[in-house]
């Protein structure tokens, strides 16, 4: 009982602090940066505390206001949630530091801080929620905050991308909501745990699974529902792109995984799971080829997100690969989130130094003169490819190990081939920096930003030694059906 109230406390503060920060920053935009800084440090500490709580006491399900589901809403603080909260906190902390040097102080951009904190609060609420309808509300919060962030720069491309994103996001939300309606019609409860107990395979369940999966896949930008992503992530301001690519698409993926681990566990037939994994592999190759043919930096990095999201969907075939098969894909979330946030930050530095132009050929000149950013770009790129001494290598290793253990070697072949494709576009991005010719440091970029970018790259390296701990944390997730 003691432990339960502790779990509730950590979970509650993880909701309260970013929300309170968002409210304050909204009321008082001028102080936004300091509010955001304080909030991000606090939330990071809280996420650590929550993870430690799960680590020592195991997963906890707590009900809000003392109303036990089905009457009330439950929060789930388990390994999966704690891991995602930690990833969000880590990326959030670095994006926050980066934004201190990115967002101008003149009042023009100060609205960024409130929107960023709103997004963070929404993501934390999403990761902790244990109720399908509550998840819908958090999804809407995420969509609105992300739309505003994409549109922040106010340019034509950004507004158009924001509109597209909003439309896809709302469509996905509606499909998800219809799934919620079907679930409630079928079972009369909304709590994930209770729905998991009732399970079942009827038409309503299958249709709910389809609608919710498709809706969430659109939000996670899984090929072929990805078309909104590259323009949105390519035209947003750099810190917003970093957040969107590193965290927002992962939020949708997280719900999808959560649903298949609980509510739809009886429907997790091999055929369905292979289909999801196969779509993921298609995404890996399509995104890879598009990245390879991109001639500008930010679209290249954005298409790479399309590809990397594909790997995450290997979680589904791996669900059936035995206990904890899906852990590999969740660990990959951390690898991709850190690497991608770092890449977008580095891209932001280079683009700004180059006067807003991010064509690969001209960015290379700036890369030659900016070793800090280029080094960060190299390390993050190596992590994306899965080269050693980065967290990406460890993630790729686990992914391959799971694929081989599960006896489905073709996923291993896919992972290896996808890695080669990633290598091709990452080295295509880095190659021009080695061409001869003068370097040009271009317009000034705050040293703080270059430093934070490099620091996040070093985190990509350090996390490479956190594989055991990460997997142990993820494993603290109670799963009754396949994958448990």
């Amino acid at each position: 009982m003691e432990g339960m109230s502790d779990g509730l406390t950590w979970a509650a503060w993880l909701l309260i602090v970013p929300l309170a920060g968002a409210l304050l920053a909204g009321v008082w935009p001028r102080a936004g940066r300091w509010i955001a800084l304080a909030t991000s440090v606090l939330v990071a500490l809280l996420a650590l505390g929550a993870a430690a709580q799960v680590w020592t006491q195991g997963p906890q399900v707590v009900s809000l206001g003392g109303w036990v589901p089905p009457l009330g809403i439950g929060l789930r603080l388990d390994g999966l949630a704690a891991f995602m909260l930690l990833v969000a906190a880590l990326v959030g902390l670095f994006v926050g530091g980066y934004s201190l040097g990115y967002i101008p102080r003149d009042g023009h951009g100060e609205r960024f801080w409130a929107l960023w904190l709103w997004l963070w609060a929404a993501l934390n609420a999403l990761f902790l929620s244990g109720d399908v309808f509550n998840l819908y509300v958090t999804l809407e919060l995420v969509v609105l905050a992300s739309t505003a962030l994409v549109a922040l720069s106010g340019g034509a491309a950004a507004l158009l991308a924001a509109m597209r994103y909003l439309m896809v996001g709302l469509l996905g939300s509606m499909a998800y909501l219809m799934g919620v309606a079907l679930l409630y019609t079928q079972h009369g409860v909304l709590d994930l745990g209770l729905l998991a107990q009732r399970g079942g395979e009827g038409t309503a369940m299958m249709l709910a699974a389809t609608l919710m999966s498709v809706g969430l896949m659109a939000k996670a930008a899984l090929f072929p529902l990805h078309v909104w992503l590259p323009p949105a992530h390519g035209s947003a301001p750099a810190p917003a792109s970093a957040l969107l690519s590193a965290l927002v698409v992962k939020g949708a993926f997280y719900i999808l995984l959560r649903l298949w681990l609980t509510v739809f566990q009886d429907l997790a037939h091999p055929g369905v799971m292979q289909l999801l994994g196969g779509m993921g592999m298609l995404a890996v190759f399509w995104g890879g080829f598009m990245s390879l043919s991109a001639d500008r930096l930010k679209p290249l990095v954005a298409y790479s997100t399309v590809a990397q999201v594909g790997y995450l969907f290997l979680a589904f075939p791996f669900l059936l690969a035995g206990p904890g098969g899906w852990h590999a894909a969740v660990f990959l979330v951390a690898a991709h989130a850190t690497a991608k946030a770092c890449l977008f930050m580095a891209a932001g530095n280079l683009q700004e130094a180059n006067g807003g132009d991010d064509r690969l050929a001209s960015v290379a000149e700036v890369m030659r003169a900016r070793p800090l950013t280029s080094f960060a770009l190299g390390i993050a790129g190596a992590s994306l490819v899965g080269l050693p001494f980065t967290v990406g290598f460890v993630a790729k290793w686990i992914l391959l190990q799971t694929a081989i253990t599960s006896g489905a070697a073709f996923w291993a072949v896919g992972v290896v081939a996808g890695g080669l494709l990633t290598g091709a576009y990452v080295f295509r991005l880095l190659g021009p920096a080695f061409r001869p010719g003068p370097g040009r440091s271009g317009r000034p970029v705050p040293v703080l930003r270059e430093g934070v970018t490099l620091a996040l790259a070093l985190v990509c390296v350090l996390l490479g030694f956190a594989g055991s701990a990460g997997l142990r944390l993820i494993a603290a997730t109670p799963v009754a059906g396949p994958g448990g």
Partner: protein
Amino acid sequence: MEAQGGYMLVAILLTSLAPGVTIFFLREEQFALRTFLNMAGAVFKVVLVVALLVGVYREGYTYRFSVTLLPGIDLVLAADALSLLFASLSATLWLVTTVYAIGYLEGSPRRSRFFGFFSLCVSATVGIAFSGNLVTMLIFYEMLTLATWPLVLHRGTPESFRAGRIYLAYTLFGGSVLLAAVVWLTVLAGSRDFTADGYLSALYPEHGTALTALFVLLIAGFGVKAALLPLHSWLPRAMVAPAPVSALLHAVAVVKAGAFGIVRVVHDVYGIPLAVEMGVMRPLMWLAIATIVYGSVRALFSQDLKRRLAFSTVSQVSYIVLGVSLAGPLGAMGGLVHLVHQGVMKITLFFCAGNFAETLGIHRTGEMGGVGRRMPWTLAAFTLAGLGMIGVPPMAGFITKWYLGLGALESGQGWVIAVLVISSLLNAAYFLPPILIGWFGCPAAPWDRERFRGHRLETHWMLLLPTLMVALLALGMGLLASAPYSPLGWVSFIFGVAPGHGSEGFAGGAGP
């Protein structure tokens, strides 16, 4: 056996890693600091390696350091006699090459970047040497890919970009194959430290097919860097890199990393008995023989000096594989000792080629006529190393071929000696003509761009000194082959054979 402080191993890695990373952020004009960092790191590394050598040889220590990467999978650094063989080769040649590179690149742009990646390469090579298990070796092997690619591109010409692309395609592919194989092996057998005679025999008849497939994948993965036959063509192209890179990396570090990996796989993962039982040694031997002959023939028909040396490398590195695949201790001794011998002789040749190119603008073998009068010291070094490659007694190359021949007899495959003879004839056919016209011919045309004329020395002292040092080293390794710390002595120590065994019948000058 007593496990000693693994911090020594970490320190050895850091002696090149720390200067490497620091140098990246130095400004171009901070010449003195950069040189100091480089030289201090290189000297320090040699000192540490010597300390380890003494510890392993005299006291019988084992050094081990490990960090957990994933449940059941550790990053292990360990120093055994075999790893020290490779590590001392890399450490010594890094020191020499650093001096050479400082002289070679004097006044050229972007030296910070060059020396940064150069040091990272050496760190990766030494990491491969000290890898205590396959996972660790894979990690450093990929790191080596990553660190050498910028060096191949360094000149920035379209040609070097083409070479870089091909190099990357080959090595990334090899790395991926290796990754898949190592993961598969770990799933099958767990992640285990290298042990003499391997750790897979318990799996044999049951997982026979998987083990054979894994062997193929592992050899393919390491074979890319070792330039085994169908996977070799990146190597001659990569010669567009600056001479020190070609010398250290493409004659020593990269190709030897591949060969060393093959040695580890055969000896310490599978073990000779299992490998023989599985019947995989015979195909490996054929592959090695094919590569030896093919490389020699291509070298014979290459007119570009560095290209000729590159094909010679393709051929010579396979001697190591051949020695291993003979599946007996004497053959393996021949192979391992060649790891060192070939490295020292080949780096001498590359330094000489670099000196010719830098001083006189000589790139093709036909342009070497009369070079002996202008650059006698360099040509003398070239001659020594070339004769060594051919296997003329008492040079180092002879020791190799002698032991390979003994190994062939020992395993009852005496006909392999014929291959050695043919290869030696081919070696002679492509090394002797340039040496002869160098000493006795005349320049066909005035040299392209002659520098250092009227200097007291025939070329810059930082180019000449390292060249002479490695040439003397190559000579000494042959003459003093039976000394305890000579490569042969050390290899005998690895196999627990008395130093000099088998050679006393012939090499009267070399034996005690």
